[in-house]
């Protein structure tokens, strides 16, 4: 891929979005039968499926916590999810993402209600286009709620970055590759508490402040979509109504 000369032309990004616009977002809850909870999210060209199993018995026994449940997250990219086929199995990047994903979600889950058990979150990236870790966290949150796991709030996640000197929300693949900064964030929207923050690139203090504010705006929109998906899942009308 060759670097485009400009990533922002006349205030619009290459895919037609304004700097503060999210890609098209679709969230569906409860689409898998065997999992205790599940969610499917499409954000732009990202397609992410999450299944939650638990709380369930923790094996091996020695990993049990006597007074709390253990939250386990596994982020996995399908070999066909990216242009150059990815070999199956966890690589160092997936291991890191699994860890920060868990740490992004753990603060809201009432783990103390299920001592000695485990809650497993499996995140499967079926198609990737930058922002898979935040999409995964967004989907995981919905899947946990779908499974009936008690939480203080949902977690909403989005990435912001800088391209051509402009702070933008929800980077796509080109912007991720050719931009100068990438900052994924996850929030507890109700209390505006940040549970995931990573960044690589370059921000001045001022740019960081603006980026954070923009991320909050994006997460609010995602929060609404998450809540809507859960409401739709359970708004089943009885036959005949």
């Amino acid at each position, binding site marked *: 891929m060759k670097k485009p000369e400009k990533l922002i032309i006349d205030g619009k990004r290459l895919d037609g979005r304004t700097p503060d616009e999210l890609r098209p977002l679709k969230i569906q809850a409860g689409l*898998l*039968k*065997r*999992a205790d909870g*599940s969610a499917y999210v499409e954000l732009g*060209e990202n*397609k992410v*499926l*999450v*299944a939650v*199993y638990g709380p*369930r018995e923790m*094996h091996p026994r020695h990993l049990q916590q006597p007074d709390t449940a253990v939250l386990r997250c*596994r982020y*996995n990219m*399908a*070999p*066909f*999810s*990216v*242009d*150059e*086929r990815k070999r*199956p*199995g966890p690589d160092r990047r997936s291991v890191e993402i699994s860890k920060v994903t868990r740490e992004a979600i753990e603060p809201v889950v009432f783990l103390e209600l299920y001592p000695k058990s485990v809650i*497993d979150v*499996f995140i*499967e990236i*079926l*198609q*990737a286009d930058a922002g898979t870790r935040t999409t995964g966290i967004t989907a995981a949150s919905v899947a946990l709620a779908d499974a009936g796991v008690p939480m203080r709030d949902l977690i909403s996640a989005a990435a912001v970055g800088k391209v051509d000197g402009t702070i933008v929300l929800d980077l796509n693949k080109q912007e991720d590759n050719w931009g100068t900064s990438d900052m994924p964030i996850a929030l507890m929207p109700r209390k505006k508490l940040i549970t995931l923050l990573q960044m690589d690139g370059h921000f001045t203090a001022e740019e960081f402040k603006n980026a954070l504010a923009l991320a909050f705006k994006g997460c609010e929109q995602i929060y609404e979509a998450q809540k809507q998906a859960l409401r739709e899942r359970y708004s089943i009308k009885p036959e005949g109504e």
Partner: protein
Amino acid sequence: MYEIVSSVKRDYIVDLARQEKRVDTRALDQNREISVETGLVKPAQGSALVKLGNTQVFAGVKIERAEPYPDSPSSGVLMVNAELLPLASPTFEPGRPDENAIELARVVDRGIRESGAIDLDKLSITPGEEVWAVFVDIHMLDHDGNLIDASALAAIAALWHMKTEGIEGWTLPEFPIRKKPIAVTIAKINEKLMVDPCLDEENVMDARITITTMEDGSICAMQKGGIGCFTPEELELAYELARSRAPELRKHIE
């Protein structure tokens, strides 16, 4: 982790079998509802989502350059990999493919390879040095039994809907797929044979046999699984079932 089957459930299914009935009211030779959707993932040259009842399986096919096998220097390479994703069942654990995942991948591979479904000879770039490799990655998403048939159908459906524009250096007019092998798995419960076992039936069955047939009814692959046995008569009956059921699955490839 294993699946616990209660004695009550086992007895119930076994007794139903004796009456030639099934736990989900299907006939012995009846498939669950089948659906096939293709072209769902862009980075994959081919992809398909197959549903057999509540079982959901996703296959993605990617084409890349590779070195040929030494004993077939001008033939393309086919590699089939299956993942029993922990998403799909409480009994699947993360990690390297286990014997079940490997068996499944190899059974699907055999059906495609032995039938000559892909004309691998057309996939040579520079004989002895570089050929096209076809990677079929099959991911289980939701396990309600008969992952083999769903996987085989997903793989062949994906291969029949390949988009080759955009592959650098690809000179063929289209992807060289020419056959439609279809795997049909038959479970044996209490001496009765039944097609497309659901999960409850799989957990209780004595044995299973998967038979992959071509459009003309010839067999290109077979695999017996489980610790029970089949008599030759049962195998004949199983073949009849596989041959008569395959068209139902095959028509969804369109």
